[in-house]
């Protein structure tokens, strides 16, 4: 007879998802909803689930608040009421190691909470006439041996399942995480239920299947948060172990690299369009813009414009301008910006030469990065992101639009400078007020003018 389990990990209940700004709260609710659906999945009679494995990071904190605990407990109780076994090992976020960890202070009657800090004896149940051996460890640094030496498997007939929250030896992660070598942990077990990685991963060592189900939702904007998420259903019978992923994530995290040169994106509009093609109300997208830019765009403007079409959008600018044709054009100019570009190009060339001579020392590389950034910041000052207001172009009316004299003046930009001055004054005043309050001394003429204005 087949045993059927639902295996989930890294639900991160209570995570505040602050990186999502104003959508943080909503996202946090998603995490709860994701856990709820996983439990409902386990309760679905058609699925005939015998047990639920929760392999760590059920909570984002070792000390979830009472409301959250009750939420989780309530859902778990529903499982128990339907005779669905629940097996839990603590994780890295909801670590058992903390003195006041919820796993120490609270009780979950009926749940197999595996809290041995070192390999111990298994919990044994009978499921459909077969014996089920459950092994687990609650990692406590300094007490749990790491790398984890593996469980002490009981040589008895039945299904042997190990639950382990940790990372394999080579994986990136915090120094406080439990480490293990799949080759030492797996032998002899039917299934190793892993937790601690947000991305689904499946591994086989001989007959043993090891699975990280991944988080139930992308928790943040890291690489492992991207892609489809959900629990897995594990079927174990005499024939072996069968894994079925169930995709339940509400929002999809996507990390997209956009190479301006490769994508032939040559202006802000094209960039906006390119980002726009990624849109989706349920998508959390981080676009990293790379490559050589032949234009300068206000990413924040683009982001703001497109944001309503996404659940959350982030744009990261890693594009470079240094070797662009744009700069080449400016370089020959007799203008001050021409001077600037020439001078900066010289310096950057020198730095590159030094790097080629002395190798990529961190100091030189950093200098190069600073100079490249400086080039961008400097050139930005002198390049219009769009056709400037006082150019002839703005006189071209949009389709069917007729332009009156006042409108013309406005378009031509009369009064723009005034506005700019006002804006600068305003800005200074804000800065000045704050500065005055910290007893700073404003020395610029502008500031004086502004404070006089303030008095009048």
């Amino acid at each position, binding site marked *: 007879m087949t045993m059927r389990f639902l295996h989930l990990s890294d639900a991160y209940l209570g995570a505040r998802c602050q990186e999502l700004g104003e959508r943080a709260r909503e996202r946090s609710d998603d995490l709860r909803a994701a856990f709820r659906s996983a439990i409902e999945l386990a309760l679905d009679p058609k699925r005939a689930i015998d047990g639920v494995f929760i392999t760590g990071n059920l909570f*984002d904190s070792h000390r979830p608040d009472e409301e959250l605990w009750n939420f989780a407990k309530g859902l778990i109780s529903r499982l128990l009421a339907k005779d669905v076994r629940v097996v839990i090992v603590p994780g890295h976020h909801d670590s058992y190691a903390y003195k006041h960890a919820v796993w120490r202070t609270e009780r979950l009657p009926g749940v197999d909470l595996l809290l041995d800090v070192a390999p111990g004896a298994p919990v044994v149940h009978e499921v459909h006439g077969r014996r089920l051996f459950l092994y687990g460890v609650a990692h406590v*640094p300094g007490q749990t041996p790491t790398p984890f030496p593996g469980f002490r498997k009981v040589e008895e007939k039945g299904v042997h399942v190990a639950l382990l929250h940790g990372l394999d030896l080579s994986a990136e992660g915090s120094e406080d995480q439990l480490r293990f070598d799949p080759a030492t942990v797996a032998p002899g077990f039917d299934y190793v239920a892993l937790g601690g990685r947000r991305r689904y991963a499946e591994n086989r060592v001989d007959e043993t299947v090891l699975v990280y189900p991944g988080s139930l939702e992308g928790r943040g904007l890291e690489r492992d948060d991207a892609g489809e998420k959900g629990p897995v259903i594990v079927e174990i019978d005499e024939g072996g172990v069968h894994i079925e992923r169930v995709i339940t994530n509400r929002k999809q995290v996507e990390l997209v690299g956009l190479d301006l040169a490769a994508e032939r994106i040559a202006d802000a509009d094209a960039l906006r369009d390119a980002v726009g093609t990624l849109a989706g109300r349920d998508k959390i997208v981080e676009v990293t813009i790379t490559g050589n830019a032949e234009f300068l765009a206000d990413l924040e403007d683009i982001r703001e414009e497109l944001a309503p079409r996404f659940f959350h959008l982030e744009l990261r600018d890693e594009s470079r301008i240094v070797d662009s044709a744009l700069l080449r054009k400016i370089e020959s100019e007799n203008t001050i910006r021409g001077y*600037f570009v020439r001078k900066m190009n010289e310096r950057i060339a020198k730095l590159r030469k030094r790097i080629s001579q002395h190798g990529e020392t961190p100091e030189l590389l950093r200098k190069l990065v*600073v100079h490249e*950034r*400086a080039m961008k910041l400097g050139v930005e000052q002198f390049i219009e992101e*769009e056709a400037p207001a006082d150019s002839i*172009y703005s006189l071209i009316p949009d389709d069917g639009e007729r332009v009156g004299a006042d409108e013309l003046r406005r378009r031509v930009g009369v009064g723009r400078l005034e506005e700019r001055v006002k804006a600068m004054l305003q800005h200074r005043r804000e800065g000045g007020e704050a500065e005055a*309050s910290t007893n*700073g001394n404003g020395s610029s003429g502008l500031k004086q003018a502004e404070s006089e204005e303030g008095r009048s």
Partner: protein
Amino acid sequence: MKIQKVKLAGFGSFNRGLEIDFGSERLAMVIGRNEAGKSTLMSAIFGVLFGFKDAALQKKFEPWDAHDAYAGEVEIATAEGRRYLIKRDFTDNTAEMGEITENGYQGVFLGSANPRGRSDEDIEYYARLEGIVGFQDEGVFRGTVFMGQSALETAIDDQIRRLVSGSSSTDFKGALHDLHSRYSEITTENPWRKKSKARPRKLEKTAMHLEETVERLEKARETFLRTVGLEHEIVELEAKQQRAKADLEDNRSTLGYFERFLKLVRDRESARERFQEADSRRGRYLENRERVVAIDKEAKERYGQFAKSGEEFPELVARLKSETRELEVEEDGLEREKKTLRELRPVPNDKLGLALGALGALAGGFVLQQFGPVPGGVSMVALAVGLFFGGRRLATGFKERKAELEASVAARSRAVAERERAIEELIGRSGGVLGQGDPDEVLRDYRRFRQILDERQSCLSAMKALGVWEEIEGTYRRTAEENLRCNGLMEIILSDAPYLAEISEDPVSVARHMEELKRRIQDSSAEIEITQEVVTEAKVELARVAGQSSEDLPALEAEVATTRRRFDALELDRDALRVVIDTLEECVEEFQEGDLVQLSEEVSTLFRKITSNRYTRVTLSPNMDPMLTKFDNTHIHPDDLSQGTRDQLYFAMRIAIAKHLSAKVPLPFFLDDPFVNFDEERLQVTRDMLEQIEEHQVVMVTCDRNYESWNERILDLDAARAESMATGAGVQLAPSAPRSGEATHDLN
């Protein structure tokens, strides 16, 4: 340079095409109503030459209605007399460039000329374009040659600064200002000015936040590890304490065995001693008693005759012995005297014989001497022997002697009888005992008898000294039992702890063992006590530490990472801005020290010309503020000039800058109704001035037909459009025929 012809195959409102020949005049006056396409025309010229950087703009100029193409071409005549044709297809941003020589058209470039592109062709195109028009960047070119409706209304220095800066939206001052304020938004540091105090800015705030968060993380990790460590230690200590307690119990019980065993050994020893003492006492008592009984028996059986003998018995024996000895002496004397009496005979006198013999011998000697040896010898022997026997027979007192002897025998007989009587008496006094044997033997018996009586006496005393029999016997029994009991207990203990048997024989070893046990017990107790103290302390410490912080490490780690990223970005911006500001300031300085002087010269020359030498010099301040010097060396600020002179000054500066920026290409100027708000007088001055700048083509677009008077020939866009509408062909625009009659200043 001069724009000679413009041909558009489709562009904005000129969807059916446009052809303009600007003709030979230096001033090209394009007159048309609003929406006639004047501005579109200018955009087209810039567009053909440079393309559109802004894709939206490019889209905007796509022919509005049905069209076959979206392309254009511009013919340019340079000051050196060369003619170039530049064609652009906006649909794919390709361009063609060629020179028109006497031998016809000679292409020099064909390929991509995308302002947003970065291919070699793109780069080549713009480099070539620069050779003709002096610029690669449309923005700067446009800024330099185009004067819009507000151009003369805004502050001169602002515009000039923007032009030399290369931007139409900001100038170096504004840029520096902006950069400085961006810098000061990031950090309080200010390497350029000294500031005493300032509130922390983004960088400092982020740094502080980072530091705080790192500190929090470190503290939380420390707390976390400390609690984990403490818990672990406490568990281990308590286990150790349990082991120590078990040890203590073991050692205590072992020591107990030892102590009980030792006490038992001592008890058994003393019991044995006491038993032995009681036993020997009993033995001695019994021995004495038996002796007394034996003595009594012996006295009765062997020495009964002495039962009545008193103390004088030995004296009696002594007297009897002495009487008996006396008697014997007397009896011996009597016998001897009787015998002497019986044997009494006369006795020879030997002495006399000897003496006479000796005399005979002597007389013989004398004969010898007288008569010879033989008669002497014989006479000597005969004389000695005869004389000796004769002397011996001479008479002694025999009779007196006999009488004496008879008297003495009688006396002795009397003495013997007396002694015999005395002895009889003594025997009588001893009760007859003495009469039975040898008195010495009797005395010896008597002495023996007396001896055993003494012995008996001493036995009795000894018995008395040993105590009462019942007590002696009781003690004996008690100690015997005790002894047995001790032996029994010993056997039980030894069977419980057989090792005691081995060491029990060696008191030193036992002592050492016990010392060791005591030391261990002491150690264990101390350990338990100290462990308890430490555990209690550790528990207090654990409660304290755990209470301090229970922050989640992963959350803090994430926050540190985020903050660090933010800090790094800000730091990068800070350093970059610093480089920008320093570099830009250097650039401005270099510009001010080199280019500005040149520019001042240029402006001065031009301005002298325009104003017919009313002013000798225009000096541009570092901020590009012009200052005028008159002949009398008085200085005048532009604000104090008349409006007309100010316009002249502005033009002079624009032209000088155009020259400067374009590497001395005499650029055309495009005027889009810049004089719209001018009064008559101001217009006149401007018009005069435009006449003065004969190197430059001026393309002026206006809707004001009053300007018709400025030029003999005009380009009438309205008329051309009307014709185009009528014929359905493209707009054809060429200078009108000169109007006759009216006196006009010919700008040419």
